[in-house]
């Protein structure tokens, strides 16, 4: 009996039914409007939209991006239109895509901010999940300060679990000594899944001005350059927790997706590659089945953790 193409790529991510395992990563896709000019967003397994905060945020001064070999540094600073606007315009607009589960990335300065945003966005009809952003390296308050201490990360997760009506994924930072400890803490606190990894803190200096290129000084490194770090961290964490992982960090191809699954991911997010090729997500989705054939695999789901399972 052959398995239909549909079922070969389908995954169940903590209860979220995805027709394929590929979603654009938060912060790399806005709220989808720009990319909808290139393809039908229903094609995606899901979408993780831009970090949302209670109030509108203007973000950091420019330059906000700098390139590195195989990667890019960004310090956007969580610019977003704020909770009211996201509820009134962005989420209803995404509602036009009736086969597209939406995961909202939730950010804030203090715990109450996270609670406010999580509670309201989780009530929107097309929101299937929340991604708790405790790992943004580019804001002075909040963000990563919640993500570097297992106890604080656990406490925030617990608070969000109380108010969220949808599964909660916690987005972990690689800028920690022991990522497993943070992962275990948020699992114990009730997290339904993990997103890993966020960007690695970095810097570039302009040789002419002798100053950091980014106006913010430091920025988050993303792109193919960080893929081995992501693979290693997912490989380590997935053996220590039972909750599913959305893998991300430099994915550019169907082969990369398969590698993330083997490391222990149950779905993937594509970030920086969207900037290089706006059509990259549908391209990867189209390539996946052929690659499964090539590796003699029936379903993508059976590859989760294949890199360490004995």
């Amino acid at each position, binding site marked *: 009996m052959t398995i239909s193409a549909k079922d070969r790529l389908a995954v169940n991510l903590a209860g979220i039914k995805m027709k394929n395992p590929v979603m654009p990563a938060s*912060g*790399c*896709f*806005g709220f989808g*409007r*720009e*990319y909808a*000019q*290139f393809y039908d967003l229903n094609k995606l397994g899901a979408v993780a939209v831009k970090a949302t905060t209670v109030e509108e945020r*203007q*973000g950091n001064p*420019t*330059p*906000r*991006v*700098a*390139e590195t*070999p*195989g*990667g*890019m540094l*960004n310090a*956007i600073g969580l*610019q977003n*239109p704020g909770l009211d606007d996201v509820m009134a315009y962005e989420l209803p607009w995404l509602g036009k895509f009736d086969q597209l589960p939406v995961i909202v990335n939730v950010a804030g300065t203090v715990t109450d901010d996270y609670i406010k945003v999580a509670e309201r966005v989780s009530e929107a009809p097309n929101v299937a999940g929340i991604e708790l952003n405790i790992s943004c390296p580019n804001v002075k308050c909040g963000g990563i300060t919640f993500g570097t201490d297992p106890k604080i990360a656990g406490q925030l997760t617990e608070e969000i679990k109380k108010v969220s009506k949808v599964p909660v994924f916690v987005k972990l930072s690689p800028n920690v000594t022991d990522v497993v400890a943070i992962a275990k803490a948020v699992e114990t606190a009730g997290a339904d899944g993990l997103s890993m990894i966020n960007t690695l803190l970095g810097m570039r200096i302009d040789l002419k001005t002798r100053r950091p290129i980014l106006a913010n000084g430091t920025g988050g490194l993303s*792109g*193919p*350059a960080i893929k081995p770090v992501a693979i290693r961290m997912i490989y380590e964490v997935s053996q220590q927790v039972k909750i599913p992982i959305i893998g991300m960090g430099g994915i*550019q191809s169907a082969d990369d997706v398969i590698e993330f699954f083997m490391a222990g991911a149950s779905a993937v997010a594509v970030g*920086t590659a*969207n*900037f*290089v*090729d*706006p*059509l990259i997500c549908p391209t990867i989705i189209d390539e996946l089945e052929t690659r499964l054939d090539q590796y003699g695999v029936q379903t993508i789901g059976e590859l989760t953790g294949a890199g360490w399972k004995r």
Partner: protein
Amino acid sequence: MNKGVLNVISNLSIAERIFRLEVEGELVGCMTQPGQFVHVKCGTGIDPLLRRPISICDVDIERRRMTMIYRAEGHGTHVLSQYVPGQPLDILGPLGEGFPIEGRKAGEHVLLVGGGIGVPPLYYLGKELKKRGVRVTFVIGFGTASQVFLEQELAELGAVHIVTIDGTAGVKGLVTDVLTEAYGLAMSEWDALYSCGPLPMLRALQDTYQAAGKEGYISLEQRMGCGIGACLACVCSVQEPGEGKKYRKICSDGPVFAFGEVQLV
């Protein structure tokens, strides 16, 4: 907005570190608005990773050919300068909102002011304005004589005033030194100004002529990520925040803005 593979026709050095790149392909058919740009993948690998935004200098819609002029300044443009005829080039575009010319009337006199690598988009703009019967005058500034380019091509469209900082070609000084009565370019002599070039130049023009109530447009550049408005890398602030958004994206709301729309900091 679309993505396509264009074929390199020629890629030649025309001044110090300045290259003229001509490409051909179907995508060119939609490049009808002067002042737009294309986002170019330089090389096929991951270094450089991001595309490079490059202005459209000239378009031949019939022959599906487009010309870009760029300065080989960093890694990406150095890679681009190695392209040879026949090689495919991955291009996203045309992108952004270009120079508004719909309201221009025959007989008007319009100033096109460019600095350095900001000069190229003024060629396509000048060509389109001339088609509408508008009289165009170019004021273009460079560092030194060896960096001057497009002088002859622009001269076919209108009067050209060259300015160099060291005085090795044309008038010594800055473009603003030529925008005076002595050169017949006092404020009363022209109807609108279009400009592209370094930020201090654009700021000087906006500060002077916005205050005087003149109509003018400036084209900005910034380090970009996606080039289509999604990543929010290239934003700038509006001058007077109203009801709407307090910022503009240079890639998709611009790169061209009217005097007074955005802060130049």
